[in-house]
């Protein structure tokens, strides 16, 4: 299969559910953004904040882990469409900002995962990495999905 046909095969696949490949992308990104919110709130509870949330440590940790895994899976189709098909573009400030943050996103993700597993690092490293990653996802969502919903259309 020629490489360019992969793009068409991907479009055919996602348009079995969504109206277009870009609509699929904005909804996957929205799901990842919502799950990032879950990540931040559960992480805050793990660190002793947001005391109105239940204090069951294992349940909170489980929700945190699984919301992170599902959020990561949701970003994969977005990664494929943005990086492999559209590429790095700078036609205007919004797209340039989106391309820049998108380029750094998976690097920050990998760094955060490694920080989770490295117990030798200072205590502030993990929340700093997590908040940075969530902030990057927020910028990516604002410069893509929110823009699409408000300027193109809100729908599947």
């Amino acid at each position, binding site marked *: 299969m020629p490489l*360019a046909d992969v793009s068409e095969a991907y479009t*055919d696949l996602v348009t079995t559910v969504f109206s277009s*490949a870009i609509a699929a992308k904005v909804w996957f990104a929205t799901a990842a953004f919502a799950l990032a919110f879950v990540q931040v709130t559960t992480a805050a509870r793990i660190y002793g904040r947001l005391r109105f949330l239940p204090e069951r440590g294992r349940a909170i940790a489980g929700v945190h882990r699984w919301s992170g895994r599902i959020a990561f899976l949701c970003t994969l189709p977005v990664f494929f469409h943005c*990086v492999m098909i*559209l590429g*790095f573009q700078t036609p*205007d400030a919004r797209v340039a900002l989106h391309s820049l943050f998108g380029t750094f996103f998976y*690097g920050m993700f990998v760094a955060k995962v490694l920080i989770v597993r*490295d117990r*030798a690092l200072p205590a502030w490293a993990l929340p700093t990495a997590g908040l940075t990653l969530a902030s990057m996802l927020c910028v990516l969502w604002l410069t893509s999905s929110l823009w699409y919903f408000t300027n193109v259309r809100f729908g599947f």
Partner: protein
Amino acid sequence: MRRGWRPLLVGGAVVVCTFALAKAEIFAPSAPAGGTETVGDVSRGETVFQRECASCHGSGGSGGGVGPRLVGAGIDAATAAAIVQQGGGVMPAGLVSGRDEADVVAYVVSISMP
């Protein structure tokens, strides 16, 4: 080397790889071969256009939104396809692709003939 640098170094390597992949655009759809030749379905393209493009270009490409008026604009297939694929102004790249793209391009060419 202190172990604490490992996440930053690996993360940095991932950033470089991501940037290289983004610049390569290895799965980008190829540009249409023919100058003004269109192979899409105009009537299906109209449906896709009303769904994906009319909010900016107006119903039937008549203008009135954030995008330019397309009726009578004299846009050929290669130009329309390039703009759809690469974006332009506030228009995002890849708004439609695959068969939808071919159909929308055919429709845009049909309405843009002066």
